[in-house]
């Protein structure tokens, strides 16, 4: 769970923006990496939707020969602008930021819910595979599981936590807050990737605070990956 370094920004060119075909309602935004380091899985980047005042935090989803790929759920104005980018357009990218997953663990188990799948293709790239459990709201959403071949998939109302194995594993989890809370209750050693609205992503604004150890701390500096207990 390390990774903090100097705050590095770059303007990157969009290589391709895929439609909703094989990955459910999500969009894969692929940008030319240029000199941008991919960082540690679980770290994030601030992507600036052109015309917006603030950038948006996004996990790095996958690294493909010179490209950084982001999996985006278009839920509001900023993500809609990002998903509407066209090949050849440019956007400002800041990162990698924050603290990623500690992958130096004996029995890694990926647990993702919905768009929480985003950081795991890159995790799997670095780990060279490994078991994964993914939960989705619908079969349409579950198409995104194609990004993580071999993953076990739970569809609502089945919860991912009901698929957690009995033996203790080193859970790496990302997903909606109720899922992370449920995982935390089951696996106190889990590493959980949280979300919070962020303005800067590098500790400047104090906008992204969450309660950690009884104090309001900046998630972008203390996280986004935190130990469950």
């Amino acid at each position, binding site marked *: 769970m390390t990774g903090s370094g100097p*705050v590095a920004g770059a303007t990157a060119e969009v290589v391709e923006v895929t439609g909703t075909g094989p990955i459910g309602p999500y969009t894969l935004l692929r940008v030319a990496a240029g000199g941008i380091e991919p960082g540690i899985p679980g770290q994030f980047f601030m992507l600036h939707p052109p015309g917006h*005042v603030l950038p948006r935090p996004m996990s790095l989803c996958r690294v493909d020969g010179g490209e950084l790929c982001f999996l985006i759920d278009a839920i509001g104005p900023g993500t809609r602008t990002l998903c509407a980018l066209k090949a050849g357009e440019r956007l400002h990218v800041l990162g990698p930021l924050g603290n990623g997953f500690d992958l130096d663990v004996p029995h890694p188990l990926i647990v993702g819910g919905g768009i929480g799948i985003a950081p795991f293709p890159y995790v799997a790239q670095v780990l060279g595979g490994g078991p994964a459990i993914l939960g989705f709201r619908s079969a349409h959403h579950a198409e995104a599981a194609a990004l993580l071949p071999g993953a076990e998939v739970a569809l609502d109302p089945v919860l991912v936590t009901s698929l957690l194995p009995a033996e203790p594993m080193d859970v790496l989890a990302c997903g909606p807050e109720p899922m992370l809370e449920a995982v935390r209750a089951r696996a106190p050693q889990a590493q959980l990737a949280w979300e919070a609205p962020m303005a800067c992503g590098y*500790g*400047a604004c*104090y*906008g992204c605070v*969450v309660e950690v150890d009884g104090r309001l701390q900046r998630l972008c500096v203390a996280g986004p990956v935190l130990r469950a207990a």
Partner: protein
Amino acid sequence: MSVSLLNGSGCLDALTAPGVAAQLDAFVTKTITPEPREGNPPVRIVETEAGMLNSIGLQGPGIDAFLTETLPRLAAQHLRVWVSVGGFSSSDYAGICERLEERDDVDVVELNLSCPNVDEAPESAAEIVAACRERTKARLYAKLSPANSDIAESARAVVAAGADGLTLVNTLRGMALDPATLKPRLARAFGGYSGPALKPVALACVLACARAVDVPIVGLGGVQSGQDALELIAAGASVVSLGTILFTDPAAPGRIRDELKCEATARGYGDPLEVRGVANG
């Protein structure tokens, strides 16, 4: 001496982003209060059409921890430090000024007389400045709110009370609703409105105050480019601060310093500072 570039108070933490602070001519701290403060509950930030709202609520360590922990670490980074001071009564402000008086590593004390996210001190801005003036020989800048029916009059009052300079402007009070639920997006409903939407308001305040008083003015509000910075200088500022732009572009200080120089040169000025006051008259 050319135009100095600072950060707006609360828009940069030099300890987590030293490389950003190093681009600045001086670093302005987040507003320091007498006691430690947790700040407001999240959600604390939201974007609007041409700006953003924040309701941080002066989260900070309080003056004791600031003096023992934060300030020495800032000094170790060789930063010129402006300390932003806040409180809930003039004696809060004056008390902090007195504590800072002992320190030679503080360049300027900026009195935040205008935070829209906490209850205001019941005294007027001028009363607070006067109380601080009694307790410190430090350079005192008064940071004023644009939510003022006659900011030139406030400027005259704080200068008469002993302010050495003005910082213009702080945020306006704003609100945004969730489009679906129609409930406020910020936990505290109201937040400080900053960013490009504030620029015309900041320009008007700087010009109005530059006409009213003869002290240095730090201009801020919606600066995104060298052109924006130059306009604040033309309106009367001699120092420019960067706030919201730092969130999208942490390289903004270097970029804007370069752009400022180019914009001034393109208009036949040897130095951006020569532009000061051009809009007036």
